[in-house]
């Protein structure tokens, strides 16, 4: 087990470096950071000055290994845009994104799992059809469009919740709902199919024949196995929340990592993009690791080694 965790840790680092290299190359191909900093009406001498100032006139390989050397000593460099150490920038803004991602996940869980469970317990009932309707609709709504509709609705017609900013919990209600809604269908369906499948299994039939019914049956016998795939999907979904925060944070003007990522990608702020990718990669691997360990703990049939 320890060996496995160490291996996955190593993998996480490897992923982080590979992806940061890929991002570095892609960014340099697609846009010139000096031009991005200089802006619309930049003259060549301004661009030259900026290149010299940020060392952008050096070859790509030198710049990448320079950055890599910095990272190994814990220095992620300084943002071209923000004139701040990137590490500071990212830690400053991480709160908002973590809050958003977790509240979105909470929205997903609170809606999806009970709905899925109720649907599974009462197949073909109105609640099953209702759950299916919710899933099918939520899945079919473009996320960014839902955000815009929410802004039109709540920004102007029913001003209960603010539509931009991140100053209070109220600011997170709409974005968390929008971001959370996108995962409801997948999680709900998996809960439902998982439960139905498990309910048909021999050991549940045995339990049922012993008189277990409804919720106790669900909790004592079915839930654990049914939630197995749900857990790994939740981990993936949480990872996607970080990715999904890009559009949501931009639409709702939340100063988090997603918006930072979008702006630094569009603005070719290479050090920031690289650190964000680095962090996202590690977060993602760690979450997957947790999901795998949980899976292994819950299901003795899966052996990891």
């Amino acid at each position, binding site marked *: 087990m320890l060996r496995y965790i160490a291996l996955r840790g190593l993998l996480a680092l490897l992923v982080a470096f590979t992806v940061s290299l890929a991002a570095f190359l892609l960014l340099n191909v*697609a*846009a*010139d*950071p000096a*031009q*991005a900093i*200089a*802006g*619309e*009406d*930049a*003259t*060549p*001498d*301004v661009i*030259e*000055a*900026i290149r*010299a*100032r940020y060392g952008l006139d050096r070859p790509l390989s030198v710049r990448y290994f320079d950055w890599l050397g910095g990272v190994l000593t814990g220095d992620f460099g300084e943002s071209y*845009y*923000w*004139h*701040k150490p990137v590490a500071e920038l990212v830690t400053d803004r991480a709160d908002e994104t973590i809050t958003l991602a977790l509240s979105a996940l909470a929205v997903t869980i609170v809606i999806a799992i009970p709905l899925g469970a109720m649907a599974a317990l009462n197949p073909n009932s109105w609640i099953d059809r209702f759950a299916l309707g919710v899933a099918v609709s939520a899945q079919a709504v473009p996320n960014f469009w839902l955000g*815009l509709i929410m*802004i*039109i609705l709540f*920004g*102007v*017609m*029913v*001003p209960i919740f603010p*539509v*931009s900013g991140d100053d209070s919990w109220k600011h997170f209600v709409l974005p968390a709902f929008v971001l959370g809604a996108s995962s409801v269908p997948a999680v709900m369906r998996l809960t439902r199919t998982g439960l139905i499948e498990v309910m048909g299994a021999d050991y549940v039939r045995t339990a049922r024949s012993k008189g277990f019914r409804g919720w106790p049956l669900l909790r004592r016998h079915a839930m654990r196995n049914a939630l197995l795939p749900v857990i790994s999907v939740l981990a993936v979904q949480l990872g996607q929340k970080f990715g999904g925060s890009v559009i949501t944070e*931009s*639409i*709702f*003007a939340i*100063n988090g990592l997603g*918006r930072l990522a979008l*702006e630094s990608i*569009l*603005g*070719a702020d290479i050090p920031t993009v690289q650190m964000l990718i680095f962090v996202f990669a590690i977060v993602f691997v760690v979450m997957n690791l947790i999901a795998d360990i949980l899976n292994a703990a819950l299901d003795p049939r899966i052996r990891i080694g």
Partner: protein
Amino acid sequence: MKVQRWRSLCAASAIALATSFAPAHAGPEDDTLRAAMAEEILNLDYNYTTKREYIILAQLTDATLFNLDPETQEVNPSIATAYKWQDDMTLDVTLRDDVKFHDGSTLTPEDVAYTYNWIANPESESNATGVVERWLDNAEVTGPNTVRFHLKSVYPLVLRDMANRIMIRKAGTYDPDGKINRDAMSSDLVGTGPYRVVNFEPGTELVLERFGDYFGEAPEIGNIVVRNIPDVGTQQAELMSGGIDWMFKVPLDLAESLGATPMATHLSGPDLRVGFLVLDAGGYTDPDGPLTNVLVRRAINHALNTPEMAEYLIGGSAEAIHTACHPAQFGCDQEAVAYPYDPEKAKELLAEAGYPDGFPLELWAYRDKAASEAIASDLAKAGIDVTLRYVKLESLNQARAARDIPAYFGTWGSGGTADTAAIARIHFSGESDRDMSGDKDLAELVLSAEQTADQEKRKEIYSEAIGKIADQAYWAPLFSYSANYLVSPQLDFPLDPDGLPRLQNSAWK
């Protein structure tokens, strides 16, 4: 029917919302003007920035030696009270003795000389270095309130550069104790302007308050808060609910729609920015490409319905142009040949050039998507098989630097300078990859205009250059822009003819 009702409901609740919220937020009560900017504000030191937002802020926090009158382009005193040319290469400037920095200290000629010498020094890596090192050899203190500038070469636009580009700093600002710190003023700015910085969170908010010891006329409004709101829709929602009083760069349709309600006033002013197509006449992407043929370039000029684009897509005071400069700029001779909209003529010219069935053309663009699409559509109508590459500015610049771009829809704001020099040099002197004409004689001509201080002579040179550009159709000039603002109905915001917003001149009604 449904949408109709929905819309009236939407508008009604918006108005209700605005009226119920307005007293709580609005500016006059706490004497605070709240302005929104989409572009992130990250560095307050205009000596180290270039974007337009930073010019607007520098007007608030900083002062320069001279001011340019936006109406007449005349040089007015600011920190300097007078100037005198000793000869073509020596300029004496007299300074006010009552100019205070925001930290309370008094400005000295040493500060002025330091600022200029620092920026002229390549070590400074300032964004203004390129402007200053063209002409400045060094600045020297010659008395208790005089500074002498020694020039490298004859350069007629010295006072303009002084007025536009160099913000005065205290001596030693950027290299205290010999250690270079280029970010010294990026957030804790000590300037000499009418407002001083109270609080600055990069990318989020800038809080300014009126500086009591400002040497010039005190602005009317006591506090200015600049908020970064990246999304125009969000800015609009904030304006409707009274969270902000001022937004700029507003898309025309939005400005007109919201301006028609009692929640906001739509202001439209002129702008020196012009839009144009740059065509690869020099054959950088393809030495024998169709664009190297002058008939093809003229055909493209004829194919574009620029008056319609100006009227419907840019709006306000925007107009079609036929010169490679803004008609309001000095030396922008309107006698240059024009190619009126005539799709049939365009087709004829293409056929005459040997392309009766058109040719494939990659057209790049980075702003004004609707106009970009309109251009592509007009060219397609003339038979050219256009692929539109609508990308980020940085990507366009990257591709242009690699000479991968045969034609692009570019714009240029001339830094608010009403002089053809401000647009001709970068686009036709061969000094940047924006110049795709490949015309060496033209480059020499354009550069020669900067070697003389004789205004009549300069005018002549620019007329010739602009005439040549039009004759050769190196560009397809499109239209001038208009600057659209949405402001709170309580705000009086005057507009200047150079299109630069000056928040310091606003007042409450």
